[in-house]
């Protein structure tokens, strides 16, 4: 499988995403530049973390207008798997590919630590084959990860099975202590209506090797490989 990784000015998770694809998934990683107008021949796309344009104004706000974004939007609308991680999630919400927005953490500081998230649905290419209710341990590292969407949107998300990950304790129980940033209803990741575009704040691409503290991230990245046929069939 050929997995594209987009680099924006200020991206810094691109190296990890490329490494996770190559060293963790053993798949081909393709670096894509923000000034490119085409994605080339890729089967799936990772929009990595970092501080695109310094996160100035709002995280992801300026990146959303990068030349490559037209191609990203086209790719997403064609139903291919697109995963936005951290800043990538922020960019995809700014671009309107995902609902909601990500605000400054309720604690007002950057937070780097390992958290638990519960997989809410297996209908996306990034959770395909993972039993709903499975708890994964992943690192977070962000200052603006508080998920917010207006109430009517959130009920839509619930109704349409678009909430993909929730922060929980290690036993899968949702509570305030397990919510690292004040996200609405402990939401850690959401998808678009179709389910092929997913964004999450935790970093699966930094959890591909037990030596790093855990390899649960491989389940999310690896799900792409299993679900590929399903997506291609559409």
């Amino acid at each position, binding site marked *: 499988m050929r997995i594209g990784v987009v680099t924006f000015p200020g991206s810094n998770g691109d*190296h990890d995403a490329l490494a996770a694809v190559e060293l963790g998934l053993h798949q081909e990683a393709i670096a894509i530049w923000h000034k490119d107008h085409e994605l080339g021949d890729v089967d799936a796309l990772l929009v990595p973390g970092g501080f695109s344009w*310094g996160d100035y104004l709002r995280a992801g706000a300026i990146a959303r207008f990068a030349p490559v974004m037209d191609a990203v939007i086209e790719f997403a609308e064609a139903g291919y798997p697109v995963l936005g991680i951290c800043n990538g999630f922020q960019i995809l919400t700014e671009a309107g590919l995902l609902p909601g927005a990500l605000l400054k953490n309720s604690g007002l500081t950057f937070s780097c630590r390992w958290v638990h998230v519960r997989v809410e649905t297996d209908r996306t290419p990034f959770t395909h084959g993972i039993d709903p209710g499975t708890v994964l341990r992943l690192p977070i590292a962000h200052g603006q990860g508080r998920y917010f969407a207006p109430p009517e949107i959130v009920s839509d998300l619930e109704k349409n099975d678009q909430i993909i990950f929730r922060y929980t304790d290690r036993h899968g129980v949702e509570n305030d202590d397990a919510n690292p940033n004040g996200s609405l209803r402990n939401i850690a990741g959401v998808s678009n209506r179709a389910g092929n575009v997913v964004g999450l704040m935790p970093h699966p691409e930094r959890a591909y090797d037990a*030596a790093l503290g855990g390899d649960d991230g491989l389940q999310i990245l690896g799900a792409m490989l299993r679900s590929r046929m399903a997506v291609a069939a559409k």
Partner: protein
Amino acid sequence: MSVSDTTLREVALSRSEYDQVVVLLGREPTPVELGMFGAMWSEHCGYKNSRPLLKLFPTSGERVLQGPGENAGAVDIGDGLAVVFKIESHNHPSAVEPYEGAATGVGGIVRDIFTMGARPIALLNSLRFGPLERPRNRYLFQGVVGGIGGYGNCLGIPTVAGDIFFDPAYNGNPLVNAMCVGIVQHDAIMKARASGIGNLVVLVGADTGRDGIHGATFASVENPEESHRGVVQVGNPFLEKLLLEACLEVLQTEHVVAMQDLGAAGLTSSTVECASRGNVGIEIDVQYVSRREQGMNAYEIMLSESQERMLVIVREDGLDEVRAIFSRWDLHSDVIGRVTGDGHVRVLDHGVVVADVPAAYFVDACPTYVRDGIESPEARSARLYDCNSVPDIAASEVIPWLRRLLASPNICSREPVVRTYDHTILSNTILAPLEGDAAVVRIKGTTKALALKTDCNPRYVYLDPFQGGKYAVAEAARNVSCTGATPLALTNCLNFGSPEKPAGYFQLREAVRGMAEAARVLNTPVVSGNVSLFNESENGSILPTPTVGMVGILDDASKRVGLAANAGDALLLLGPPAGALGASEYLALRLGANLGAPPPVDLDVEARVQALVRNLIQQGLVTAAHDTSEGGLLVAIVEMLIPQRVGATLDLDAVIAASLGRVDGGLFGESASRIIVATPYSQRDVVERLAASAGIPVLTLGVVGGSQVHIAGVGEVEISDLCESWSNGLR
């Protein structure tokens, strides 16, 4: 015509230094030249007071590829790779504007690393503040921590280790030392030596503004808040990230002959250093320098310390390719001049010469001072304080004291700080902050890893600069050894008060002597460093703080060991068992003052204890290792129990007996060369045997398990209670 005292004060030159300038030039300097001399002859750039002392450091070794003198040191780590590292202070700017001061400190040290062609892979920071009860100190603390995280996180370089210490001597004068570590192929190491007459001088990155004018001079005078009149520098980590990637890419081409970041004294020091190191001249015209503001004159342009700028010396035929790479990264670059053959730094403003001085005058002719140093009477009498005049504590007081020590700001959990630093980015961190005595980061594509730590107990250095200097090196190395890594080399930042005061000079000289001796015996040459003197405020000098940044190598990364003990492990103490009260955190808390002689370091024992622990780790015999430092033995034991929230059953009578029979001395006294290891109970005797054959005392302290810490003859306490004391000290 003679220059006024006010002007001289502005450039921080003495009258006699000015006279030397006139003699050298054979004429009065122009205003621009005078400003340039002021910057280059400041302590910060010229090391006027420290240069003779720095010669005491051992700087070479089989693995040293680059010692002091370039932007950073470089050490061979095999596989054709080198580790490049340096530590630098940003104390004065942080006292004025803590967030931006600390942020730009990180920015500066990162540039020093990628200037060498190395990719930065880790950041460390060493911080000193006055007590947090004072609102101003808390403001500085929060700002500094915020700035370090804000800049490093954005750059995507993990901040993996550091150290923090509080003492009233840092009121109004916090210390902010940042260290960066990078990796480079041997043959890709780039130097800051201009060469090739006719080659082009290219300035790339941020536009030049009026920020930080006289930063270098201002870093070398007392009372920063008062003396600082320039515009505070505001960092742009986003721009630095672009510079980092673009510079590393440009260095892949054949077109660059030298690279130098613009740090203190901006264009002045970068042009002077590039020319002087390369034994060539440089001619630039400031009209080509892009500005952020209108109406800047040559003086301001030459002394501006605007951040995120680099000087690149490029072959003319490669210019287009180099500039294309920069513009691909949306970076603006200007050709501002050329390399010349006459050894002069010549500055033009629209073709008119405004400065023309042989580079050597700025560098080689910089005056140096060797002064008289005398121990201050206060430090002397504090050192000679009779610790045994303090009554011992009763067994019933041990647990309350333990809790008090665990909650002390100098000992308690650094979690509230480290959580705001991204330590997982780059996916190399295999021993994270709080997991081990040093951080361990793997090197992708090899089996190797680096162990990194900064350290300095400034209380020790204050009370006995020579022993304290030795101890700082020994402790940093010990922390590295406790992960299983072999200490390779060190960098250091000498943060001291005024060397013009005999007591200040004494501290500086003695600490450097001690550090040099330890570095020699422990075989960890000094490959880079930085000097920050004149750290004084209305309450006098800071505690002398020679921060050591140690780098070690672990050939097999999978062998690394943290500090968390497991249930079922035995705890063994390696090294001389006795603790003593002198200069301890315990005594400081008890008496509210820094008192007593710090523990002396027997470097031979130190080296053997460290070798032993590395050997044990190498053989897979231990699950955890941790040295005893502030707080002494019992605190160190509890620090090994906290991560797994597990208890232990301890018998520490032998330690107490060895410590003149004092309960407080044995449990809370401090000492050098002690390491506690946790080993599966069944392997205890193997460890004992190896220790015996290495000639190192070994003592079984107890067994890990349960939810309580039981201490024979003392009582017990829930580990969760101890966790609570430890966790909340910085909140």
